[in-house]
């Protein structure tokens, strides 16, 4: 039986490959969720009654159910009606749809925090609704939202590990594959935990640098 360190050395390349999939999956989902999240937030704030109801219903329902159930619904449930996704796509769609609802809430909060008077002032200057949003609300909201929104990055990075349940070969999935051959589950998961800690800590470090860079001077003191 090889020692823990030899096991770590031998399995590290495969695990790091898995970590690459984890990062890719997270990045794509966050990007998709970012776009859909803005659409949902705008729908809830500027939409008519119908659009508001649809967007609110979506956000509340997605935030009220576990990601794992959403994933199972997409991956095991939808084939009942003839919609079959491969594992990676199913995980990506589930995570993207999930994070969109959470991101929408961050964006909505940020838009709401811009004083209404600024929008009225923009209208008074002859700007259209779109112009007021594009030039007055959006740039401020974006800077305000990033520190809170970046929590979602870290959250999604961790929760992308759920994809392994439907067989996506990301970090957890790779560890599982290796462990199925040599039965060293505990040690391999320990290595995986270490890799996740490194990933999360470095992402958190990058985020705090970004936060400092993007902070609106005078708005909220750093903790």
């Amino acid at each position, binding site marked *: 039986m090889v020692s823990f360190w030899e096991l770590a050395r031998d399995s590290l390349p495969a695990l790091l490959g898995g970590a690459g999939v984890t990062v890719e999956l997270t990045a794509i989902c966050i990007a998709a969720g970012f776009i859909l999240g803005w659409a949902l937030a705008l729908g809830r704030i500027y939409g008519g009654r119908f659009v508001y109801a649809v967007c609110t219903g979506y956000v509340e*329902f997605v*935030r*009220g*159910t*576990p*990601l*794992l*159930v*959403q994933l*199972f*619904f997409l991956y*095991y*449930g*939808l*084939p*009942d*009606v003839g919609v079959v996704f491969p594992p990676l796509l199913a995980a990506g769609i589930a995570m993207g749809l999930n994070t969109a609802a959470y991101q929408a*809430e961050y964006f909505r*909060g940020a838009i*709401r925090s811009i004083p209404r008077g600024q929008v009225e002032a923009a209208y008074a200057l002859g700007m259209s609704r779109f112009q007021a949003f594009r030039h007055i609300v959006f740039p401020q909201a974006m800077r305000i939202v990033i520190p*809170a929104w970046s929590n979602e990055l870290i959250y999604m990075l*961790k*929760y992308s*590990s*759920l994809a*392994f*349940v439907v067989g996506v070969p990301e970090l*957890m999935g790779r560890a599982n594959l290796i462990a199925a051959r040599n039965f060293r*589950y*505990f040690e391999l*998961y*320990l290595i*995986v*935990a270490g890799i*996740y*800690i490194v*990933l*999360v*800590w470095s992402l958190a470090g990058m985020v705090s640098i970004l936060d400092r860079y993007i902070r609106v001077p005078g708005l909220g003191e750093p903790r």
Partner: protein
Amino acid sequence: MPRPLPAGAPEVSIILRELPWFLRGVLVTLEVLSGVMATGIILGLVLSVIEVYGPRPVSLLATVIERALRGVPPIVLLLLVFYLPWDLPPLAVAIVALGLCSGAYQSQIFRSAIRSVPRGQLEAGLSLGMTQVQTVLHVVLPQALRRAIGPWSNEFASQIKDTSLAYIVGVVEILRQARYVIAYTFGHSLLVYGFCALIYFALTRAGNHFIYRLEERLHIPGFETRRLAGKRRW
């Protein structure tokens, strides 16, 4: 034993027929939830008190433990505890692993609540002849805990959803019961998982309602509560 849908019966009747099984799953979910929250509160309080009042090396160690626990996905923790050299029943695995996770988050909540109690009160307690432990127990914590309820309730709400992860280590909670129902009735995954989502939605809704009521009852007069603030998140 297999119990397929009788010919001609509408698909939805499966839900009605299998309802007792789902309810059993709900009970187990609540069991996991209460275990996790209890473990989390204890661990969170211990970690936060150590981080704030402990001597430097000990508090540093507590911070590192907290950061590490927050850096590991709950699934990894679940499987780590599951594959520990000694055997634990699935329910215990779920409660320990998710409890560790939640404890790390709760320690953050309690830490900032403890920090929000002015330091002068601690000094006043000491000058009255109370020991440091007495002061923390009787002066700081009662105030800190009431202030922590708002953010704590967020953690509670997200923990309701995270109990579904206990499925992975074989706890027969809602999702696992759903899988059994699907196996016994030969299919209907869409319906069954859709119903699962509804159950969780109802649970989180009910949980949130309950926790808001608690928040209002325990809120310190003069301090903003969430409902007074129009349910704005920030």
